């Protein structure tokens, strides 16, 4: 038996709110979602005209564009030569490709000994089931050491270009709020579900780098993507609770130092024919293959922080 509710009681139920929302009378998120009201775009005609004039003036001054037939011709010629240049390059490289040994065959013209050795002895010598991981982190580890420093130096240059000082930072804060809606409920709900999954998946990729496809870089990129999603959903205020520029600095410092020192030890013992104390472990176990797992973790941390740092820099010029 149903009892008829009084009007006041009915207005408290979720059904009432639902139907009201359905009929479009009320947006339940008003008051919860923080958004700047969008202003109608008013094209500033005067400014546009002035800019156009200035631009023409520059063109005139530099190239005398209004009465310059030859400039027009030059542009046409530029385009035509570009296409010709491209075609010439293509022809040259196609001829080269046509002389290369056929794709899919085993035999390289001179030898295959390096690749064969990696496949045959890789498991035994590096302990990594994933031969590629064994190759880049053990046989040819010097390249990979350089590679992680490429990433490091790139962040440094991005910092130089985009990091703001104190006063600019406050202004950027205001701009950031203007262009990006805050606390979008849909995004937040989805992010609450997705971010943990993404980050756990990234950790899985890193930890399995020596056992299957994956490794520090790909896993770190996945974790970085998770962090970027979190930042987009919840804003800088929340991420700053656990990730500031200081965190970035120290995480990068410790990971890269560990990388450098661990690899130095391995290079030093290798070159001086000393015995390395690092155990290889049982191939296939999670704790195996010597330094590869810790190095993957270090690389993963650096990459995750770097991806996040790139995003934060591009968006606001700081963390």
């Amino acid at each position, binding site marked *: 038996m149903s009892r008829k509710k009084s009007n006041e009681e009915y207005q408290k139920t979720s059904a009432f709110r639902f139907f009201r929302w359905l009929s479009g009378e009320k947006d339940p998120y008003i008051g919860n979602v923080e958004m700047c009201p969008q202003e109608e775009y008013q094209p500033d005609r005067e400014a546009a005209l002035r800019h156009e004039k200035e631009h023409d003036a520059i063109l005139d001054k530099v190239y005398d564009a209004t009465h310059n037939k030859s400039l027009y011709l030059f542009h046409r010629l530029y385009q035509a030569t570009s296409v010709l240049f491209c075609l010439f390059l293509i022809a*040259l*490289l196609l*001829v*080269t*490709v046509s*002389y*290369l*040994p056929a794709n899919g065959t085993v035999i*390289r*013209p*001179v*030898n*295959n*000994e*390096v*690749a064969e*050795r*990696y496949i045959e002895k890789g498991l035994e*010598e590096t302990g990594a089931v994933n031969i590629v991981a064994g190759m880049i982190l*053990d*046989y*040819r*580890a*010097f*390249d990979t*050491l*350089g*590679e992680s*420093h*490429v990433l*490091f*130096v*790139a962040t*440094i*240059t991005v*910092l*130089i*270009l985009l*990091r703001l*000082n104190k006063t600019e930072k406050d202004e950027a804060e205001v701009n950031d709020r203007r262009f990006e809606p805050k606390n979008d409920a849909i995004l937040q709900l989805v992010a609450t579900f997705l971010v943990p999954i993404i980050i756990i998946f990234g950790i899985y990729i890193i930890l399995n780098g020596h056992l299957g496809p994956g490794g520090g870089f790909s896993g770190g990129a996945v974790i970085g993507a998770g962090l970027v999603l979190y930042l987009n959903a919840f804003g800088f205020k929340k991420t700053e609770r656990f990730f500031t520029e200081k965190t970035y*600095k*120290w995480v*990068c*410092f410790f990971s*890269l*130092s560990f990388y*450098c*020192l661990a690899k*130095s030890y*391995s*290079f*030093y*013992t*290798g*070159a*001086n*024919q000393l015995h*390395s104390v690092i155990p290889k472990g049982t191939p296939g176990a999670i704790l195996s293959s010597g330094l590869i797992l810790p190095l993957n973790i270090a690389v993963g941390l650096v990459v995750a922080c770097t991806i996040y740092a790139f995003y934060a820099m591009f968006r606001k010029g700081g963390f």
Partner: protein
Amino acid sequence: MDFICNFPFFSILISLFSGTICSVLPAKAAKAVNRLVIAAVGLMSAVLLLYLLSTGESFIYWMGHFPAPWGNEIRAGVLEAGMALFFCVIMYLSMAGGAHKLPDEVVESKHSLYYILVNLLLSSLLALVYTNDMFTAYVFVEINTISACGLIMIRQVGRTIEAAVRYMIMSLLGSGLLLFGLCIMYDLTGHLLMSNIKESVALIMANGEYQIPLIVAVALMCIGLCIKSALFPFHAWLPDAYGYSTVSSAAILSSLVSKGYIFLLIKIIYRVIGFDIFNSTRIIDVLFVFGLMGMIFGSLSAIKENDIRRMIAFSSVAQIGYIYMGFGMGTQAGMVASIFHILSHAATKSLLFIAAIGLTDVSGGSRKFIDLTGAAYRNKWAGVAFTAGSLSMVGIPLFSGFISKLLFAQAAVQVEGKMLASLIVLGISTVLNAVYFMKTVIRIYTSEQDAPYKSITFRDRKAYTVVLVCSILLNVILGVSSQPVVDMIGQGLAMFA
């Protein structure tokens, strides 16, 4: 194996690691670390050089637990150790000579970042010098490029950022070509280590079947490195980058960064392809022609220039032309001349940039010639240093520039087909050099009584003056006692093969 054999590895690792350390240090400490690292690496290279001269043999150092075709390795010979030592000396002088301008031109909070970049640049240069592996070379070429770009745009004015963009674009084209050439090379030979590639290349050339792709690969790598080292038609980014960046950066860029790529090219010629095979291709003729064009057009642009720093920058284009002309001759003598010119140009160019900043400082910061009138009286040491650098560039005896021109001329006489062209262009280029450098020297020594600028004496800038004197001495030493250096280069090249 002697303990000294670890030194190349230590020097690369120390400079790489110090970059990471500087990221958590305050600016002052970072500066100290930077100086210390450069000095330590220089010292190690000097000891290594003496050791190598006494043993007379190069050695291979495994980077890891695996021997030649499987592992990665670095290699040190007389030429490598000498280059590393020289790079450290020049870098120390450039950093010390430009230190007083850094606070004016770079925001305070970014100083420690600057030292990180310099440390990483040093490590990448050392790695390019010592490496025996093509792909490692590629990775460190990229570190070199990115940190050089950082050095250009650390002084943030419109010109430097635009120059940095142009520099990056040209460099990326170069590295793309280098990587593509490398991949074709790997596909043909199945190796990435230089010594093993060389054996395979000899087999392929003897066999004859895969010659065409091999030569294309070599050509791609050469053009890539030429673009990166600003050979004549690819130099558009250079004047702005050298002319407007902070002075330490300009000195380091002009005297070290492009030289690192050129040294890599020498390594490729000798240790990857083989000198004789390289000379039998038409590539050296192309290098020769572009070198000659660079010598003339670089000097012509420098004459037209009205800005002292840009003028010095354009002169770099001409000097790089000299180096490639030496490659293009295709003889051992030409190669020795080129390598000597790398040293002499690096020593002179850093001196000129540092001296020029002293002259512009006493002219109200203006770099226009008209304002520089009489600047040498207001800052005597900078005037002397600039004059010494100019004389060296023109090729006056006693200075290093004279020896390199002499070596080029001697090398040119031995080459039948290219003698006339190289001698004529050498002559023209010397005259043009004289025109624009002497014009500047006369301008700065024309006395002007009522200039409203302050003078600077030795007491105001002790460190700066000491750096200038050291640079002049380095130049004179290279010029006066050139024979041991030339012998050393010859010995180093013999070890390469």
